[in-house]
């Protein structure tokens, strides 16, 4: 939209036009591919990090050091403990043993994965069972995709929807070069009208 500028008498305005035209024809690049998405996501992550940083004590540093786990069996046990730590910052009012949702409620369940090195092409499996589903994937109980993990903290925010009263379970499995680590989160859905 061309606007009238308050740049002085008409003669001065006329004099400016060639320069303005030249300036407007200067090449200006568009953002690099993926920049807009990354910048928007980074803004959200930074805000989330600030919220986590404001939490007290050990909750602030909840991590999932799956690269250092000793083995699958032991890993499972550690995962259970870490799962509690993972969930408490998200909702500190619920029992650390379980996440409680009301029927039809949607809540983001955060999984924070701390990797000691960069991992290219890790496979992430998410399995939702029982009374819950992943928002937007009602008909798919298992979802797999590949992602690169950065060295350090990687946040995976899973939108969980309470579809029925009763117990539900959310399992996240991360696999890389034959090594597998798993976290399981127990959820219970309550129908307030029941």
């Amino acid at each position, binding site marked *: *939209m*061309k*606007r009238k*500028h*308050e*740049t*002085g*008498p008409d003669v*001065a305005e006329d*004099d*400016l036009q*060639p*320069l*303005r*035209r*030249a*300036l*407007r*024809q*200067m*090449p*200006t*690049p*568009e*953002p*690099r591919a993926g*920049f*807009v*998405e990354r*910048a*928007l*996501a*980074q*803004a*959200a*992550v*930074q*805000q*989330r*990090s*600030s919220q986590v940083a404001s939490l007290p004590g050990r909750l602030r540093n909840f991590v999932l050091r799956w690269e250092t786990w000793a083995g699958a069996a032991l890993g499972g046990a550690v995962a259970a403990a870490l799962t509690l730590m993972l969930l408490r910052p998200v909702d500190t009012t619920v029992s650390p043993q379980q996440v409680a949702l009301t029927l039809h409620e*949607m809540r*983001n369940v955060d999984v*924070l*994965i701390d990797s000691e090195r960069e991992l290219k092409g890790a496979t*992430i499996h998410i399995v939702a069972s029982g009374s819950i589903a992943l*928002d*937007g*994937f009602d008909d798919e109980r298992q979802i797999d995709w590949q*992602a690169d*993990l*950065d060295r*350090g*903290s*990687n*946040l*995976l*925010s*899973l*939108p969980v929807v309470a579809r029925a009263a009763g117990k539900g379970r959310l399992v996240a499995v991360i696999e890389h070069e034959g090594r597998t680590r798993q976290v399981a989160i127990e959820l219970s859905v309550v129908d307030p009208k029941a």
Partner: protein
Amino acid sequence: MKRMAWLKRTRGSLTAGTGDAAEFERLLREHVPALYRSAYRWTGTVDRAEDLVQQLLMRLYPRLPELRKLDRIRPWALRVMYRIFVDELRRERASPVEFGMDASADAEQDSGEGDAWLDTAPGPAELTEQELTQERVVRAWERLGEEHRAVLAMHDIEDYTLPELAQIMDIPLGTLKSRLHRARARLRELLTAERLAAADRV
């Protein structure tokens, strides 16, 4: 911390994010390319433009409730980005920003003297359109100070009016007019130098 991509299926398409993040994206996404172009014109490099926009978005995210209420997000965001830009210049110079050599002229304009911004001095008319080749304009622009680039970009390229710019830059109208005048004068000097250099090359 890296936020891992999570694909949410909505009405058959895949979109990223949920909740506040999704709303933030919905409100800002269409403006980010234009803000990036402004940042690029001010800073002159892709990396610095990206840094500036990234800082802007991080600054805006906690202000989502304010963003929701805005009729026009872009000028408001541009104002925040300009403030970040000026703060960076201050840090880089480790002293309060003085816009080129023109601090005294700003004071003069603020005191109500003169209408130097009216651009009556010889200048662009002497530079014919044929002489304003893209190559020369780009070279002169690159040599222009960042603060001059900012005011020229927003007024002469992006068409913000002086009252809008006075708000964005948070300066009195008179100061803005002086600054704009000096920015154009400096650009003319650089363009003239480019023209002479080209003549020498010939």
